[in-house]
């Protein structure tokens, strides 16, 4: 079964050498059996959005099976907007992640407005981090305010995944990404409640080793058809990609 990991980071690992460059990323993907991945730049999140997203852009140019998610930081709107104008028109940038000061500090709609208003023209999905109930509610608020955008909830609410499933049931433009808590029951609940077509696989590697994240999906008592959608089909549709890649993607 092919695997598309929509949530992988370039840099930022505590483990030396892990995910620090394209070679390390693609080697880890190959080892884990991942065919394609969307990467985000830790440099963009932690240091400077423009410089970091340029690093991600350079990385995806070197690896045909990598795509980039532009990282926008609500505390650095100017640098984020510059990065957006420069990089978002590129086909290999497939989404925008709107992030704040820490993983566990939700980005409110008010904080995200400046970036999202500028982003709407691209008609690509956005990603927001939701590692607990507060994050889920903030993401739901954004999804309701921007019904024309598809909102990918990174981390699926963490241990509060029930809130994430409920939010996705409420707002049909929410897509759940499977990282966060390594718990099989959340997949069963999400598939039963919103259907497998709105769930996408993300590992959050290197924070979580991709094989462990894949193992969770494989272990879950859901159908093979649901797994195929989660691992591959939904990401292809979400990012409007060809499967296999069209020549202009490469």
């Amino acid at each position: 079964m092919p695997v598309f990991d929509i949530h992988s980071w370039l840099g930022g690992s505590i483990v030396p050498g892990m995910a620090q460059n394209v070679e390390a990323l693609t080697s880890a993907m190959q080892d884990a059996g991942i065919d394609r991945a969307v990467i985000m730049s830790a440099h963009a999140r932690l240091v400077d959005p423009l410089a970091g997203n340029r690093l991600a852009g350079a990385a995806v140019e070197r690896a045909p099976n990598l795509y980039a998610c532009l990282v926008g930081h609500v505390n650095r709107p100017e640098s984020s907007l510059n990065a957006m104008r420069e990089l978002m028109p590129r086909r290999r940038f497939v989404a925008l992640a709107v992030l704040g000061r820490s993983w566990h500090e939700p980005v409110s709609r008010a904080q995200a407005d400046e970036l999202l208003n500028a982003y709407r023209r691209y008609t690509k999905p956005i990603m927001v981090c939701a590692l607990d109930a507060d994050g889920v509610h903030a993401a739901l608020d954004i999804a309701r305010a921007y019904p024309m955008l598809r909102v990918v909830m990174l981390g699926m609410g963490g241990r509060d995944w029930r809130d994430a499933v409920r939010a996705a049931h409420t707002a049909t433009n929410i897509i759940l990404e499977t990282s966060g808590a390594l718990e099989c029951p959340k997949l069963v609940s999400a598939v039963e409640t919103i259907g497998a077509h709105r769930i996408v696989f993300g590992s959050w590697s290197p924070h979580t080793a991709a094989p462990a994240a894949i193992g969770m999906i494989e272990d879950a008592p859901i159908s093979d058809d649901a797994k195929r959608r989660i691992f591959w089909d939904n990401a292809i549709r979400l990012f409007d990609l060809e499967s296999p890649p069209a020549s202009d993607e490469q």
Partner: protein
Amino acid sequence: MIDNALDINTLFGPLPNASVDLSVDDLQELMRRHGIAACCTLSTIGMLLDHNTGNAATLAACREMPALIPTATVNPIAYFGGEGPAMQFVEDGFRLVRFFPASQGWPYAFAPFRTLMGTLASRGIPILIHLNGPGSATLLMDSLTGIEGRIVLADVDDRQIAEAVALMRLHPNLFVETSGLSAAGAVKLLVAAVGSERVIFGSGAPARPLGGALAAIRHSGLSDADLARIMGGNARSLLGL
């Protein structure tokens, strides 16, 4: 993948916080499906409600199924001193004692726990204790100064590797269980720092998926010899099997 794999960290029974329940039969089926030869396990009742009742349920399950290695637990909040529990554990054939300070709401520096640890150490019973973020292992080891028991740290994640390594260099009887080491490269980093003899496979099942835990180890890039130690050799040595 590995013959004779042993999982040192499993539970059976209801587990509301993890939204998952697991019967003993389900646990056995999970082990069979993933090629786990044996596992240390205990009834969740002992963790959630009452350790005496839970330990009795654990013993009953393990007597029927030899692949299950009985693991006891004690909530120090309900421990009023004496050698009783440790003696009873030896008599009953428990191989390991687990502690759950965060979920049971007691601190690492806690006199009943320290007393209990003294009695377990004197009888050579190893313990597995769940950590609660950076700093907790340091607090734990500070609170146990002078007690030389064998201790397995569980829930060590990538933020705690440096702390675990520093403590393991000071305390030769300290081990780390792998269920929290889900970050890419974490297991290999730990092995490089302290050696594969000090790392023990645990899945955290049923709260965490056994397949994912195994995959993380399988893809860790370690040698077959290291994997064999981590996946069973070290645990068997620790447990006296």
